[in-house]
């Protein structure tokens, strides 16, 4: 049974539909990413789950209890915000302690000096102290407990925000673009830290990001959202290698996938820029097909095999690999091709190269952008496996 179920959630602001019926079931302990371009509704969805926003329709069910009318603070979820949302006037210690104090002490006990007057206050405060210190230790914040947020670096603030979330031991963590305010290097580092934290806590994480690399590197599953709907949910591997929609193919992966125009022939094979790809698809002959080939699924042609010939327009040398931008007749943009540095070292701008796709790694989409299944015809000879 799913720990957290989002079913048919819709949301509109005035006449703008932001969410058009979203369904996700999240298992206990799962790390799921909501990824999509800006404005796709992923943050709104997270806020609806958190209880900070009400859905126009649909239900949020946490552990089989419908929480639509339950306040944010009573849903037992913790959230890490993009801007960290640390209380600027409180020390790191107090920031982390706030959620515990609000839950375990009543209004009178929170007043200064209450420990001397109200029985039981001191014990609870001691307990809170211990827990805050444990969390600080876990996140390496022990030396910073006395500081104010303004005296912390971006990465440290990020950690405090995480600390404030985990100290509560919530049912699930909601993370709203938590890394987008960090510089590139720290972002990569924090990616690892968050993934490790997820493993050590064993808790459910719902992670919103527009950065497909974050989603790919950390998640058990990824939900790709476009224009208020979920286009595909799956493991990072499925999302990357078997995108169900051309928008998913284009959004995931950097640099972007090559999309080339093609047409099916009588056998269902797709002809692309004069080259026939030996993967017959489920489509009538003569259908226009969009062919998606990732840059690493393109290789240099060997010998006299049929290939796309083109002129190298631009070379991006990343050290370990090299990206070629190759202008090929029949399409506007260049074909992007990733090569190992050794094989591409001698290729200069202006030189002519012959390229062909790695047939098994090609994705086919119909005109509407839906994935076309490949006919399982094992009798067909695979030209270049």
């Amino acid at each position, binding site marked *: 049974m799913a720990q957290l179920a989002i079913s048919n959630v819709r949301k509109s602001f005035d006449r703008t539909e932001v969410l058009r019926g979203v369904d996700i079931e999240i298992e206990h302990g799962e790390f799921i990413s909501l990824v999509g371009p800006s404005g796709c509704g992923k943050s709104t969805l997270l806020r609806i789950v958190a209880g900070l926003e009400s859905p126009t329709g649909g239900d949020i069910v946490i552990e089989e209890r419908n929480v639509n009318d339950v306040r944010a603070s009573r849903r037992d*979820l913790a959230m890490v915000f993009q801007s960290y949302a640390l209380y600027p006037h409180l020390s790191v210690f107090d920031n982390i302690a706030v959620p515990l104090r609000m839950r375990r002490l009543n209004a009178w006990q929170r007043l200064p000096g209450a420990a001397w007057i109200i029985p039981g206050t001191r014990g609870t405060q001691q307990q809170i102290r211990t827990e805050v210190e444990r969390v600080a230790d876990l996140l390496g914040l022990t030396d910073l407990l006395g500081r104010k947020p303004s005296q912390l670096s971006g990465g440290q603030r990020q950690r405090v925000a995480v600390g404030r979330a985990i100290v509560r031991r919530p049912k699930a963590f909601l993370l709203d673009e938590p890394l987008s305010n960090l510089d590139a290097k720290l972002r990569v580092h924090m990616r690892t830290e968050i993934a490790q934290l997820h493993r050590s806590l064993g808790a459910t994480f719902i992670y919103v990001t527009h950065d497909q690399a974050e989603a790919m590197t950390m998640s058990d599953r990824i939900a790709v959202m476009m224009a208020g709907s979920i286009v595909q949910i799956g493991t990072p591997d499925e999302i990357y290698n078997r995108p169900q929609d051309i928008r998913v193919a284009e959004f995931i992966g950097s640099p972007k996938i090559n999309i080339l125009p093609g047409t099916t022939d009588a056998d269902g094979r797709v002809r692309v820029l004069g080259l026939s790809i030996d993967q017959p698809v489920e489509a009538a002959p003569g259908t226009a097909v969009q062919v998606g080939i990732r840059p690493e699924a393109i290789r240099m042609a060997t010998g006299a095999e049929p290939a796309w010939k083109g002129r190298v327009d631009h070379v991006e040398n990343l050290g370990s690999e090299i990206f070629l931008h190759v202008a090929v007749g029949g399409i506007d943009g260049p074909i992007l091709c990733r090569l190992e540095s050794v094989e591409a070292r001698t290729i200069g701008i202006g030189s002519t190269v012959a390229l062909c796709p790695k047939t098994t790694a090609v994705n086919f989409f119909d005109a509407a952008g839906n994935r076309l299944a490949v006919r399982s015809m094992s009798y067909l000879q695979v030209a270049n496996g």
Partner: protein
Amino acid sequence: MSRANPLPTASAVARHVVLLALAAVVLLPFAWMISTSLKPQSEVFLSEIRWWPDRLHVVENYTAAFAKAPLLQFLLNGAIVTTSIFALQVLIALPAAYALAKLRFYGRDTVFALVLFCILIPAQAIAVPLFLLFHQFGILDTYAALVLPFIISVFGIFLMRQFFLSVPDDLVDAARMDGISEFGIVWRIMLPTAIPAITAFGIFSVVAHWNDYFWPLIVLNSESLFTPPLGVATFRNSEAGTDYGPLMAAATIIIAPLVIAFLFAQRRFIEGIAFTGLK
């Protein structure tokens, strides 16, 4: 203009000469006031300029000032009135500003439009009806009459709303998820966050109401309630150009608290008054 090209020495000197001369002119009334407050009667009415008296009459003039009018009472009244006004202004404006900046509710735009409209109303223009209202209530000539008209600071609401708009919504959401009530958010989160804006507004408010003359003049009769400006004006009327030494001593005492506070926190004062003065 450009700090990149430092001026040659001659113009740097010229700059100081001109500015110092201007500064001297601007400070003249202060200097003359203090100088006179040190003089005995015989040296006040001279037909020559004498900055430093032959016979120093500091003690006599300042004791006379305190003896002839309850100056300490005036200062105390000023302190009571300005702090009451400021405290109530914050108490009333802060929750409204939070609601306008961070809550979505039916009628928000209308309320904000009313705030903007009220900013345009100059206090003097509504003195007549307020006077009549307070007359009806029978609270003329009380501290309440001095404080009440100003406890609603629409400008304060506007200012703090603008400040809260710059506070990320995430902070409010985080507080909600941490279990802090809306009321708690106003006083435990927004208030501490807004301290810089509230300080600026506080300086503006205290200076404006400490120096206000028009309204206390209208509603007060009893000398025991007089605020500093009203007190010193009454002092002068009763002395009517006869005893300038003690009068200038009294004037010096009245302006001293603000000027001294200003000298200690110039930057904050200038920021507070300049930025809030844009209303």
